[in-house]
């Protein structure tokens, strides 16, 4: 059985630190005259994207190419059953092509989990439904560590649509593993009912939490939530849960502002906050490539993966 990265919970503390340390080395490569490593020469990485996400796809593509892997982009928009080939048949196709790693983005929670029981290669979850997005959490942790130092004991506030956010889920799990103290902030409608069982604090009051935060991560408000009665109006959401200049001023001096992108400027984050020197939003993009290089190297760079978890079919 092979090992995969499907949930941030698949990483032990040692695994997570190994990824972050490896990402640090990978980041150096970007500043060299030759931004490429021969490490994954002859390996094939398939980017299997069932959802449009240019940002994530090119990040994984750049990561794989910098490691000299052969990259095959396979975009299959729409649901697999209603619009053609089933996920299983696609998996068998990838298997026949000899994919060593499959990076999958899918609208259905659990699709990477299913895929892992049908392919021999390592599966990397690049976002599944409203479940998880572990490499986003890794790049966020990497960004925080570069700015703030070690994460143990650091206070991280994540604000927004926790209920539907795979970024929030993965961050809560990874940051808890790394010993950070996470507080989730959202209107009550945007928390899962069982959020109390998660390894974090929750709050409905952003202003109360901000002065105690070392990092604030703003989540994107999805268009479809705006019309589904999760909150009365976008304006009210923005007023109560948006990070505007006034709230920004209440953050401690050293605190950083993060966003996984793409942003709704003026909704969850004000433009001047997004563009401030304490915003890591652009850095997060660059760090995404380093973190994903680290994941691909540690999964595919040896006779067997150094991180991740086996999945029983």
């Amino acid at each position, binding site marked *: 059985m092979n090992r995969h990265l499907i949930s941030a919970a698949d990483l032990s503390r040692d695994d997570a630190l*190994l990824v972050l*340390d*490896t990402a640090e*080395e990978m980041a*150096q490569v970007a500043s*060299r*005259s*030759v931004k*490429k*490593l*021969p*490490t994954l020469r002859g390996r094939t990485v398939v980017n299997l994207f069932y959802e449009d996400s240019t940002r994530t796809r090119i990040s994984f593509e750049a990561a794989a190419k910098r*490691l000299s892997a052969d990259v095959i982009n396979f975009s299959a928009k729409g649901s697999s059953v209603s619009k053609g080939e089933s996920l299983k048949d696609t998996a068998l196709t990838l298997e026949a092509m000899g994919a060593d790693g499959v990076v999958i983005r899918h609208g259905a929670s659990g699709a990477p989990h299913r895929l892992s029981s049908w392919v021999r290669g390592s599966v990397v979850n690049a976002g599944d439904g409203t479940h998880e997005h572990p490499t986003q959490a890794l790049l966020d942790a990497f960004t925080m560590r570069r700015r703030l130092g070690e994460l143990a004991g650091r206070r991280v506030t994540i604000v927004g649509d926790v209920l539907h956010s795979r970024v929030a889920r993965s961050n809560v799990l990874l940051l808890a593993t790394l010993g950070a103290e996470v507080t989730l902030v959202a209107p009550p409608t945007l928390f899962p009912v069982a959020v109390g069982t998660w390894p974090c604090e929750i709050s409905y009051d952003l202003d109360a939490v901000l002065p105690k935060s070392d990092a604030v991560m703003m989540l994107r408000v999805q268009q479809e939530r705006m019309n589904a009665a999760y909150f009365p109006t976008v304006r009210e959401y923005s007023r109560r849960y948006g990070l505007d200049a006034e709230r920004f001023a209440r953050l401690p001096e050293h605190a950083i502002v993060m966003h996984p992108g793409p942003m709704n400027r003026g909704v969850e984050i004000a433009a001047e906050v997004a563009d401030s020197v304490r915003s890591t939003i652009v850095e997060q993009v660059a760090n995404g490539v380093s973190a994903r290089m680290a994941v691909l*190297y*540690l*999964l*595919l*760079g*040896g*006779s*067997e*993966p*150094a*991180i991740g978890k086996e999945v029983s079919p």
Partner: protein
Amino acid sequence: MNAAFRDPDPGGAAERTVDPDPRPKAVLEGPDIRRAMTRIAHEILERTKGGADVVLLGVQTRGVTLAARLAAALQEVEGRPFPWGSIDVTMYRDDLRMKPARALGRTEPPPEGVDDRVVVLVDDVLFSGRTVRAALDALGDLGRPRAVQLAVLVDRGHRELPIRADYVGKNLPTSMRETVRVLLAENDGRDEVLLGEEAR
């Protein structure tokens, strides 16, 4: 046959997790190692005509320690600091697929860079030559040195590639069955080179 012993693998952990031979023999001791490094420093200065453009790059892990010592020895003679740094060859190795994915060491060339410099690669043991081959590839991705030279504390023979050292602390004829372990105070608490018999 234990691959970790066939190849000194300075970056890998495997070498140090295997129990050493029950009766290893010390072939070099602290003062021998010190003298060897001093001699190599003098040879570098002689061969590079004062070492004006010399940059030392230690191969992870013990090569880095030796590079730092060499830089200090050079400074003692010349009275000026010598740039030195580290290079990790893990991602350039030709045996990556033979072991689980490994943790990486630091690659940190000195701020002066390596372009147009005379780079002296420093490693503890020269054996098959595969680590040096990987280091040459890694170095090529860092920049374009004017020349590359190789300094090693021990050359134990059995080359598998057309590679030779420019500076050798000690030539140590060995059989394939023997193991060579370099211990350095900074890494291991004491200075010693041990020759042992591979456990069967």
